[in-house]
């Protein structure tokens, strides 16, 4: 393999293409006149498989640069902070959910300081409580039932 970017993109295309076609097999295909729910997805999935194959084959013949290190810390912390917000928002309330979101995501930066992160969290919590909860009426409690409120 000479071009890892093409190779892995090809793998993703092929994987998604095959999955699309495979799942579509559970749906009625219909005919060209009266297309069933499986018709269009099967065509698209097939085309995606084709693109994936071309990308895979190309990766062995043309050379390209390496992908480079995967920013595992950034990816996991950012994704985790957002997911944690979703998990906490209704049960624990907006205040703890935002606190966790801000501090956890800020930790991904190389310039992370506890003090500035806490201050930022406090400021954003006040702002969001006023704008989103009071003004726009987003139905989230400030402190939720999990905290015994």
């Amino acid at each position, binding site marked *: 393999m000479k071009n890892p970017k093409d190779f892995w*993109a090809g793998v993703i295309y092929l994987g998604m293409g095959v999955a*699309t076609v495979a799942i579509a097999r559970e749906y009625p295909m219909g005919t*060209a006149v009266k297309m069933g729910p499986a018709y269009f997805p099967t065509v698209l999935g097939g085309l995606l498989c084709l693109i994936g194959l071309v*990308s895979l084959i190309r990766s062995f013949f043309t050379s390209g640069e390496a992908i480079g290190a995967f920013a595992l810390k*950034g990816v996991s912390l950012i994704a985790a*902070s957002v997911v944690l917000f979703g998990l906490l928002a209704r049960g624990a309330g907006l205040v703890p959910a935002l606190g966790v*979101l801000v501090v956890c995501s800020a930790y991904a930066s190389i310039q992370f300081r506890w003090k500035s992160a806490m201050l930022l969290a406090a400021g954003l919590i006040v702002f969001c409580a006023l704008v989103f909860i009071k003004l726009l009426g987003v139905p989230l409690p400030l402190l939720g039932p999990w905290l015994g409120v």
Partner: protein
Amino acid sequence: MELLANLGLGLETAFTLTNLLYCLVGVFLGTAIGVLPGLGPVATIAMLLPVTFGLPPVSSLIMLAGIYYGAQYGGSTTAILVNLPGESSSVVTALDGYQMARQGHAGKALATAAIGSFFAGTVATFLLALFAPPLAELALKFGPAEYFSLMVLGLVASVVLAHGSLLHALGMILIGLILGLVGTDVNSGMERYTFEMPQLADGIGFVVVAMGMFGLGEIIRNLEHEATRSVTIKAVSGLLPTKEDLKRIVAPILRGTGLGSLLGILPGGGAMLASFAAYSFEKKVSKNSAQFGKGAIEGVAAPEAANNAGAQTSFIPMLTLGIPSNPVMALMIGAMIIQGIQPGPSVMTEQPALFWGVIVSMWIGNVFLIVLNLPMIGLWVRMITVPYHLLYPAILVFCAIGVFSLNNSEFDVYLMALFGVLGYVFAKLDCEPAPMLLGFILGPMMEEYLRRAMLLSRGDPTVFVTRPISAVMLAMAVAALFVVLSPAIQKKREEAFQEEE
């Protein structure tokens, strides 16, 4: 004069106090978020979309349009002052604009950008008013076969004109089209690709995809190359250009406006292509071409005029045909659908107040832009200097609450996180997310038109080539693909986008 009557109707709609206010708020918010380094118009609009959902359709579209050119102008400000273009269309502005700022002419560069944008915006708005009605009339004659072919042409053109690998752009379009199919099939009522999750029955929200791919994905990418130095900006002074400066920028602004308006209409065109093309064109024809890259005022005027003209005229295919020519327009179409408006040629005849109101408000928005931006430059400077490590958690907060509030659903928040990770992975593999968003918006429409066309032709696929308009559009799509695959053009295409590096 029908045009005058139409514009009169537009003025009536746009000049109500509430709509003026929403336009002003849109321009202000758009600029405020747009100046933040690393946030382009797509992310800005996606972030601010939820704010507009509660408004009546006209006001919400007026505000969104305001956000768009506000964000566009904000991006240019950042590009000029700190050489951090938040979006691809201001990359070329940064080339000469930042040099001017370093030489102490930041104020002049900003004023040039504002004047160029304003002039281009005014011309482009008139073009929009002039060309939209006949195009919409033509589009009313389109059957499903024509629409299907038009969408194929639009997608192919967006690939050809976008930068990056052709193969990957096609792959990303297909992924977008497939993701667009998730949810309940309108014809059979069957749930597809929902994995028996009720939250997916209505499909994946496009705001979720846009915020994930463009918002979160971008943050993860920026953190990877986090710079420790903080941004410092000298005080901006000397806003007014001299008479001599004005003389120098007239021709570039005119050329930029012309080129930008033309390129904005093309599918796949819009602001970015317009600014690149205008810069390279100006560099060729200008008397001062030796100064380009070293702080030539022409190098700011031309691309700024072009990108605003392009931004404005890219509304033409969106408003008349319902076809997005770039990701921003895809977001606009998504917003219209959420407001219960089916984008397409019928908007003009069925909702003339909305159609003309939005057009007139664009011009008003451009007035606000110039009135607002120059005096408020101090505020924008302060927003730019917010360090990134304090900025991105705040962006995440707004994305998270915004996405949650769409359907009051945690599921959408998780989905956004997933698309954020996906966006980063694709970025690592040099796969651009923009074509995916276009495919995602067009997927359901394409399937519907394909079905209808095949039903009408009783299963005869030759209908796409025997109907003349459809055949011409498909032929253009094929020709575009062949042209871009030819080695000579491919080399030129690489050169054209090289300035970015």
